[in-house]
């Protein structure tokens, strides 16, 4: 079984996580409908290292992980301060 190693909870089986997609900056407040539609429906899909949201259900913890989409290897857990641009309350 694949495991994800996260700070605070250690290696956990992937079945305990929910994938919540790529970390992206919030949409600009004055964005046009075309820009908003592009943001909602389109992804680049290019292979590489992606920053992604992962939710650990049993502990109710959110994590940002960097995953290589080519090898499916999780490279590191990102400090929330590094992705403050995507978290309005930080």
């Amino acid at each position: 079984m694949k495991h994800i190693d996260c700070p605070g909870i250690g290696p956990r089986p992937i079945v305990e996580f929910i994938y919540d997609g790529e970390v992206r900056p919030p949409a600009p407040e004055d964005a046009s409908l075309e820009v908003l539609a592009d943001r909602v429906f389109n992804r680049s899909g290019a292979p590489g290292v992606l920053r992604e949201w992962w939710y650990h259900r049993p502990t109710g913890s959110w994590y940002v992980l960097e995953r290589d989409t080519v090898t499916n290897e999780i490279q590191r857990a990102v400090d929330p301060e590094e992705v403050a641009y995507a978290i309005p309350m930080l």
Partner: protein
Amino acid sequence: MNVSVSSRGGLDLRQLVGAGAAACLQGAGYPIPEVVLSAVPCSGGFVARTGHDEFLVAADEAPQLSAASPPWCFQRSDHLIELTGPDWAQALTAVCPHDLRALGGDAWLMATVAGVDVWLRTGPDSSGGLLIGCDPSYGHYLETTLREVVSETESLKQ
């Protein structure tokens, strides 16, 4: 297999959340776990630290905690299941991806059992048994599943 599954009552569960939660608990005379995701025993139950400013208190009597905010104090109605007998960890291997034999005494773990998010708590002596708490809406399913797992494992051994 020497393990039995039963519902457990008689524990009052409260969740204390928010800034000042640790001080509030200390003021009420409860011990505070230093490390997040750990627990310490208290008055027939335990205090578990489920976050930096978040605690789950299980006691045989309702804790005298202020409901003023913050911190907020919520009553919990988790379904409690008790596994007793020395083979409880072996019984759970069929439904839990963790190796629960590694849990020591007074241990606390938040994990998934039979697809349900649960918390697991061992007593001072881990061979004595395990207490499982889960969302009450999943309680009947989880308890029935655990009973069947134990029953099937016993019948396979005969």
